[in-house]
């Protein structure tokens, strides 16, 4: 194969190659499109068409099988007037604090500590441990946390062991603590993701900057504020985006740990959409809530994108 043969072949194929090259020159864009078409077709079938259908369904009263009736915007007006539906949206904003703000803040602190204090074997071990929750299926995590947070569970046993018997309770079954408890599970899952991503960003920062800062007498916090955060603005943006979507579109952790209860204490749009569409068989109302959720996600995400990319880094 590698011998003298190729020359002959090249010679033989030259005319055709010339023709091809000519065609390519005529329509380079067309060839590019040909490569993209399979992916685009899939995207259109599995993403765009369902999205369009959801918009369409949201204007109908439909049980998924029988005849559909056009109802205009009434599904949307119900989303914004029914306290149960509106409540799910408020709950998802509360989850933003637990799924997004706290993991990113804690991740920033953890990453900068690991980055500053240690980079050797201890550093990578610490990173691996913190990242571990990411590779556990969320459903399994939800089940395990359900056990840990139950009345006879480990968390309450620990409280009892240190004499805090008065705070023990069924954390996921108590109206006041259910949502923060679900939020805690979210922090546990998302902290590792944020830490690893942010630390990767920090590794790219020019060490001269740190040296300069230290020569100027900057402490850990000043260094973080003046060098690290500006240097990893893009990574922070990605973290905020991913975690904010996880908060607003939360389903599995909530479904497995509380199912939206007790009462409506942890009901989030993802669960309500599922209930409306598949239990209540109100496909139109579920679609309207889904569209509202998509818009909410965009409203939250777009400013983050602008902030992190605003000034070209």
């Amino acid at each position, binding site marked *: 194969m590698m011998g003298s043969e190729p020359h002959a072949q090249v010679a033989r194929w030259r005319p055709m190659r010339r023709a091809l090259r000519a065609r390519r020159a005529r329509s380079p864009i067309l060839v590019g499109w040909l490569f993209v078409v399979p992916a685009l077709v899939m995207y259109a079938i*599995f*993403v765009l*068409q*369902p*999205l369009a*259908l*959801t918009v*369409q*369904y949201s204007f109908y009263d*439909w*049980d*998924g*099988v*029988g*005849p*559909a009736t056009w109802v205009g915007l009434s599904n949307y007006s119900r989303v914004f007037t029914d306290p149960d539906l509106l409540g799910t949206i408020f709950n998802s904003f509360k989850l933003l604090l637990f799924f997004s703000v706290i993991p990113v803040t804690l991740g920033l602190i953890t990453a900068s500590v690991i980055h500053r204090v240690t980079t050797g074997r201890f550093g990578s071990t610490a990173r691996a441990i913190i990242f571990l929750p990411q590779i556990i*299926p969320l*459903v399994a995590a939800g*089940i395990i946390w359900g056990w840990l*947070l*139950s*009345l006879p569970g480990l968390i309450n046993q620990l409280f009892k062991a240190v004499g805090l018997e008065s705070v023990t*309770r*069924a*954390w*996921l*079954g*108590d*109206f006041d603590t259910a949502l923060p408890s679900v939020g805690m599970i979210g922090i546990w899952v998302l902290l590792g993701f944020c830490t690893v991503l942010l630390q990767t960003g920090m590794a790219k920062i020019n060490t001269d900057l740190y040296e300069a800062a230290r020569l100027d007498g900057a402490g850990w916090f000043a260094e973080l504020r003046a060098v690290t955060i500006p240097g990893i603005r893009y990574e922070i943006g990605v973290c905020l985006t991913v975690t904010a*979507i*996880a908060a607003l*579109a939360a*389903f*599995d952790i909530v*479904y*497995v740990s*509380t*199912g*939206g*209860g*007790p*009462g409506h204490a942890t009901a989030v749009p*993802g669960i309500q*959409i*599922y*209930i409306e*569409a*598949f*239990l*209540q*068989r109100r*496909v*139109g109302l*579920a*679609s309207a809530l*889904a*569209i509202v*959720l*998509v818009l909410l*996600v965009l409203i939250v995400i777009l400013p983050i994108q602008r902030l992190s990319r605003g000034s070209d880094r």
Partner: protein
Amino acid sequence: MFINSEPRAGRLRPHWLVLALAAAMLIAGCASAGEEATTTTTEAATTTTEAATTTTGAAASSTTTTTEAVALPSCGTDDVVLNAYFETGFILPFDLSDEFTKQYPNVTWDVKQDQFTNLMNATPRLLSGDNPPDLIRLPTMVSLVQDNLLKNLDEYAAAFGWDQWPPAQLSQNRVAADGTRGAGSLYAMGLNYSLTGVFYNKELAAQIGMTEPPKTVAEFDALLAEAKAQGLLPMMVWNATASGGGLAFPLQQLMAAYGPTGPINDWIFQQPDATIDTATNLQATEHLQGWVDSGYFPEDANAIQYTDANARFRGGEGVFIFNGDWENATYDGEMSGNVGFFVFPPLEEGGSLAAMSAPLTFGIAADAPNADCAAFFFNWVATNETAREINVAIGGSNPGGPADLAIPTAAEGSVTNETLAAGGEVAQDNGQMDFIANATGSIFAAGWTPGLQEMVGGRQDAAGLLQAVQAEYEDELGR
């Protein structure tokens, strides 16, 4: 129905799909298994025509059978593969289908199984799909009937003589033209008929001085108070969202003690103007709230799932538990000889007994290719001696069928014998009720469960609970 197995089915399931970050796509993705909304009207019209054709066809074939002499619908002699959907974790239908094949070797089964709540979600699409099931475990069925997805079983009932059986067996599976249940055409059959009541831990009951089952609600109250005084948990219950509000069991029993069962059944069967918010139901709900406030239920009730509640009861936590005879086998296992059962007592001694009792409902798709064979299977389950024995031994419930057939007995010492005997007493008093959680497709998930959880959490009172559930009921029925 919920009463039979929803709690068991309400376990944890991964809904990977729904994790998708754009929830919108999910909905459309799943729903697009149907047709797009605008064309659906035409679709439905076509289906109706088809259904009409099917009916004519069935009528024609039954005329033929009548003229051919009294040949009943059967599985014939050619090979038949019954396409069936059963409920995961519930072995009775599997055992019955195996025995059926033993007796009728030309019939084999293509059984698909899924958790009950998943089946509930999928049923409309399965019934309207390209491969409609011959036999399927059904949730509440009114909307399925209204969408012409279920086969009308009236002709089979006439042919096999099901309409000669005690009428209470079939009434819960009848749907009238106006969508009310309890009367009208038959659209499903029960493989058996479950009974609910109060199970008790015999050892703990003896400890609190219970020598015989309480005869009045007041006597039961006294037992609960004594248990509490001795530091025992009076009643185990599940009330977590994933399993549904198990407090609905004692609540409905109290409702039937304070008032007649008629209005409760009317409400479940969606009779016009039916309401759950009545004076006697309010008394019953207040009574339940008294139990909650007295600490007769576990303080973490809202976090306890169905399986956990039963495991804890079997492990000796709780003197009483409100549950149904489908748990007989598991109670007999771990608590062998230590578990008893009684029907919840009336308000006054000697008053009539009442209990939730529901068929284990199965239906046939409107376009099922082997409907005759499936109907024959229904008849076989209720009348064949071996099938009835399997039903009692495995299912723990009354197999139903003709009134003159004796009910097989369970193994000696099994609590099943107590539940079967109790079922006879309830039937004498005509005290069977369907379950208030079955009134509509989601009254349990959207009405009772959150309301009862709020009551446990001290955020809802008796009157507010009934009003909220009634409002949800009217909203779902578009009243």
